[in-house]
């Protein structure tokens, strides 16, 4: 090649390659279905944050007195708010389930010397989640 270094007889030259570093596209996550799933899972965490903010708004309204609380609950009853809550709930359930799904990856549980299979861990998590949800639901209804 024309621009290859000239090497005289007996001279040793260490090969220094011109390394090409490809640039990562900002759309790397559309390349594979698993990446899309990952991004959706991560984005649904925003809904978790939204619920936290919602709770803070509720507490704030409570501290402002009965009128403020009434105004907020009236807003909750609007179709827009109900629709929003349904969408949020679906995303939140998706978020929760995906984390239960990966739980066996993070935990190795042993009974005696036997490893508990991942499916049982997932089922246990879901069962616990349902029981706690029902208990809280019952508490709210019975008050």
């Amino acid at each position, binding site marked *: 090649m024309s621009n290859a270094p000239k090497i005289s007889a007996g001279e040793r030259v260490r090969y220094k*390659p011109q390394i*090409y570093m*490809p640039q*990562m596209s900002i759309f790397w996550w559309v390349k594979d279905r698993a990446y899309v799933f990952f991004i959706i899972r991560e984005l649904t965490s925003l809904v978790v944050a939204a619920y936290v903010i919602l709770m803070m708004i509720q507490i704030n309204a409570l501290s402002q007195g009965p009128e403020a609380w009434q105004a907020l609950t009236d807003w909750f009853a609007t179709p827009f708010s109900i629709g929003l809550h349904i969408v949020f709930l679906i995303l939140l359930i998706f978020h929760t389930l995906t984390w239960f799904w990966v739980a066996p*990856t993070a935990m190795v549980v042993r009974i005696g*010397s036997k490893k508990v299979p991942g499916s049982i861990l997932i089922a246990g998590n879901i069962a616990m989640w349902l029981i706690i949800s029902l208990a809280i639901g019952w508490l709210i209804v019975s008050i």
Partner: protein
Amino acid sequence: MEQTITLQVQRYIPEQYPEPYFQSYEVPLRKKWVILDALNYIKDEIDGTLTYRWSCRMGVCGSCGMMVNDRPALTCATFLEEYAPGPVRITPLDYFGIIRDLVVNTDDFMGKLKRAQPWLITDEAKPLSEGAYKQTPQEKAEYEQYSMCINCMLCYSACPVVGLEPDFVGPAAIALAQRYNYDSRDEGEDQRNEELTGEGGIYSCTLVGECSEVCPKAVDPAGAIQRYKATGAVEWWQSVLMPWKGKS
């Protein structure tokens, strides 16, 4: 007439052209051929300038990892027929610098491996007279899975965090750290924690999980990293709630 399949191979020859480009080769589509056989056919019969790494052709040496249709794979363990009728795109492993054609630069990976200190660390070496370090089958089973890593680097190409955060020590290195952390003969966990719980360590992992999907040896690096994080969290709480206990 023998059936054929087209391989679109990424070429990079820096002294000829400054950017990578694609070159198509038509190779026989044979039932028992893996991608590596097709590459060897190209090298032997069509174009001797094609450069790639390979050695054992039986999934042990970890040299022939490449992207096959954008997914990291050991080309010696990936059948050509699965991609029929083609074409098949062969590119170098993602997130690595390219030296030539399909050969990537492994310097960075080697440095990361070292950060994980994947060797037995003991506070004090036992004198020879005390004999061997013994281990029960149960103790061996504890880390065996992580010891299967062949350093093929497929998990690095499957991990977007490796691409986005060049300092991330990466899946294989952490799995290998765990291989020694879980070894009953090892006492180096604190040393490794120092290196792996800081910048670019285990907490850079966002659990995409693809490293474990592409691993040809079922090492499950994603699991190794999450278990590391879980241990780290427990230790942190212990240090907050029971500071008098100190490090064991």
